[in-house]
């Protein structure tokens, strides 16, 4: 990700960068929920997460992601101030809910996305899908089954799919250390939701869970090669490609 000199200079000018070996920094790895490597985070000066993702990313995708994190952070306080004037504003709550979700602050994401969901009119089906799906995912991560039920009911009303919420439950299983159990669920997901937009993400994590369960690379390579063949332009396939190419 870093051999590009122009990107390295841009990175140096805009961020402070630390590269940490998770096998030696287990406490930090646990604190930041590192499930796989490379695991990329943007944090503020207090160490609070602004954004997180799994790599590797191409230099251009990496720069785009960092730009987005930086802009989101810069606009965050302004959005909070505006929200203090109009606390029930659906769009403001949606922006904050997304930002908290990206930062992995599940409780705050649930709080704001719940308000956003209530404020959306019936004429905004696409936004309704996005908000309710994200609310469901955040609720699952938080372990809040009541909010998860509210989100899936909302998705049914919007005529949206709750596949992303189902997938998030499997991510939680993987994060809890049950790689073999997660692997079975990812296998079922890619079979049952083959044409869902979340399928590439499931293929990617199927590969990861297979490796974590067996400590053998065959299952990972098989899943990732299928992912790359099926959706070469997808962001998850690009991540897999960069690793497979090595």
């Amino acid at each position: 990700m870093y051999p590009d000199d122009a990107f390295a200079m841009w990175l140096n000018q805009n961020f402070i960068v630390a590269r940490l070996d998770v096998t030696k920094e287990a406490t930090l790895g646990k604190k930041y929920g590192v499930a796989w490597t490379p695991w990329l985070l943007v944090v503020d000066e207090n160490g609070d997460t602004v954004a997180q993702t799994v790599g590797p990313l191409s230099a251009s995708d990496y720069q785009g992601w960092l730009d987005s994190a930086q802009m989101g952070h810069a606009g965050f306080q302004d959005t909070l101030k505006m929200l203090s004037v109009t606390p029930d504003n659906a769009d403001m709550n949606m922006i904050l809910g997304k930002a908290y979700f990206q930062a992995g602050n599940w409780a705050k994401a649930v709080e704001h996305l719940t308000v956003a969901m209530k404020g959306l009119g019936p004429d905004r089906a696409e936004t309704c899908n996005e908000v309710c799906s994200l609310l469901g995912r955040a609720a699952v991560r938080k372990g809040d089954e009541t909010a998860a039920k509210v989100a899936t009911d909302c998705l049914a009303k919007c005529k949206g799919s709750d596949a992303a919420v189902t997938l998030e439950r499997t991510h939680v299983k993987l994060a809890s250390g049950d790689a073999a159990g997660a692997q079975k669920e990812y296998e079922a997901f890619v079979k049952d939701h083959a044409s869902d937009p979340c399928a590439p993400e499931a293929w990617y994590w199927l590969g990861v869970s297979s490796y974590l369960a067996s400590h053998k690379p065959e299952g990972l390579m098989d899943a990732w090669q299928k992912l790359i063949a099926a959706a070469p332009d997808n962001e998850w396939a690009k991540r897999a490609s960069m690793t497979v190419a090595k």
Partner: protein
Amino acid sequence: MLRCALALLVAAPLAFAESKVAWKKTYDEALSEAKSCHKLVVLDFFAEG
């Protein structure tokens, strides 16, 4: 800010062989410099081997 500018000037000699990124050696060092320079921190977790 002078400290931040100097850090950029010496970035290349401090960098790993494969790139010109001015890596901080520790988490605490990165956060400390973020406070001085008012910048965000990128943490790149990797696994040796």
